[in-house]
């Protein structure tokens, strides 16, 4: 628990009136000059990008480049050392501003059933409406038959599906996913990619997908941010993916994408 002592305290806005106005009028995820450090070691510096509403951008970087830290900052779990994060035009705010988070580490509530995990924190006295929404969501991710099972009874792929279901059950349009497909086998990953597209086509989602896999990045996202490792991590390059959001399909292929993938790998190696 020690680590969470620094839970977000609403920072006083340092923005000027004009900038605040622009931020408020924007929707999407907005990062300006974000920096972070664990104690004395800086891990992120000068991170600036803007993910427009309805787009999901990939955050690609080698391990140790600060992907997870950045996801936690955007989720409101860590307070950035410098800079601003704006969600839906509002800046500041602590954890709870985005429910749609899929963590890399184990985070399912083992003592609750699959259905209760999705309804959390209102699992004790759910309204019939909440229960219906939860069940619909679980059916959508293919867990409709496992409502009363517990997380430990699920396979790794099913656990990931449950994590997506509980992250996206609300009205929240935002999604932050930290290596969500990293721990499953290649075939299950294909299934989960398809699920990813289904969930995005059900309603527009705005978000970030952190991954170390350039292929996943070019296939699943509308743009790719390359996070360069080094002291401290910073944005090396941003690639727009041709076709972008209009070409949502697992099977998207083509020379353009292959070349892009090579380019991303090159920029990672720099």
């Amino acid at each position: 628990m020690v680590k969470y002592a620094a839970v977000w305290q609403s920072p006083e806005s340092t923005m000027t009136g004009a900038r605040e106005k622009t931020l408020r009028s924007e929707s999407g995820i907005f990062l300006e000059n974000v920096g972070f450090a664990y104690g004395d070691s800086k891990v992120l510096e000068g991170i600036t990008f803007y993910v427009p509403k309805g787009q999901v951008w990939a955050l690609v970087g080698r391990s140790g480049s600060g992907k997870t830290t950045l996801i936690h900052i955007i989720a409101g779990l860590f307070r950035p050392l410098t800079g601003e994060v704006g969600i839906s035009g509002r800046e500041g705010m602590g954890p709870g501003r985005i429910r749609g988070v899929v963590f890399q580490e184990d985070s399912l509530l083992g003592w609750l059933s699959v259905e209760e995990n999705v309804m959390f924190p209102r699992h004790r006295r759910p309204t019939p409406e909440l229960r219906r929404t939860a069940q619909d969501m679980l059916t959508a991710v293919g867990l409709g038959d496992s409502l009363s099972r517990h997380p430990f009874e699920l396979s790794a792929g099913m656990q990931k599906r449950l994590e997506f279901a509980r992250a996206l059950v609300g009205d929240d349009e935002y999604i932050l996913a930290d290596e969500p497909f990293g721990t499953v086998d290649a075939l299950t990953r294909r299934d989960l990619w398809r699920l990813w597209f289904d969930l995005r086509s059900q309603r527009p989602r705005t978000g970030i997908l952190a991954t170390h896999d350039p292929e996943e990045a070019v296939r699943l996202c509308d743009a790719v941010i390359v996070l360069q490792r080094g002291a401290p991590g910073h944005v090396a390059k941003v690639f727009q993916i041709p076709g972008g959001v209009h070409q949502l399909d697992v099977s998207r292929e083509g020379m353009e994408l292959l070349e892009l993938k090579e380019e991303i790998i090159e920029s990672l190696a720099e």
Partner: protein
Amino acid sequence: MTQSGIKEIQVLGSAGKRRSLAILGVLGFVIVWTMLSILNVVPRLLLPSPWRVILAIGDIGFALLVHVGATVVRVFVGFLLGSALGVGVGVWMQYDRRVFALLDGVVDTWRPVPPVALVPFFILWFGFAEVGKILLVTLGTGLVVTVAVVEAMERIPAGVVRWGLVTGVRRRHLFRLVLLPAAMPELRSGFRIALAIAVTLVVVSEFMGATYGLGYLINVSKVTLSTATILLGIIIIGLVSWTLDRVLRYGFDRACAWDIRAKGAIR
């Protein structure tokens, strides 16, 4: 979910065999005891036979129930109060690190001191009153439970806490909804140790001054050299702690079935 993996190397035998062995263990103990006594390996006065112990039940009669009842009630009340105190203080120490800073040193220096050493003071302060006995047990168990709660909460996976925060649960509700249930499996051993300490403390405090209770029974029998009654008292204390421990384990098994099954432990 992590797997403990211990079951992969356990020698199991059949379930039936395990059950017979459990009975054999207790039976074997009684047989050795009987032999020692009947064959006069140990003089009969120093080690009464099981039969003499059973006869002692008849000698004491109804009063035995009162003695047992008094001890059980003291253990129960003291343990409950101590657990409540321990959970309260432990959670508070983890919720507010300033409280942790304030209390950690105190808790850590008192914990290694056997609470039994405090008995003379408790007699000075409270005489033979019931309050003193209960307070001694509350303090003794409270310290153990506090440390167990503080430690268990530190072992909660970070992702679980983060998910709680992300769903917008307020910090003070987070303890009830996420942290306590998540820490529950880790609390099991701490609570079992606390229960054993509660029984010890009740018996010791009954030694020092009481009018009922198994400790009192043993103490007065010492004067009249009624070794059979002493042994009877010891056996009943064992049975009482065993029963209470079973109840506690059953409660934890029910509450933490998810964790036990996740780890695949054989119980």
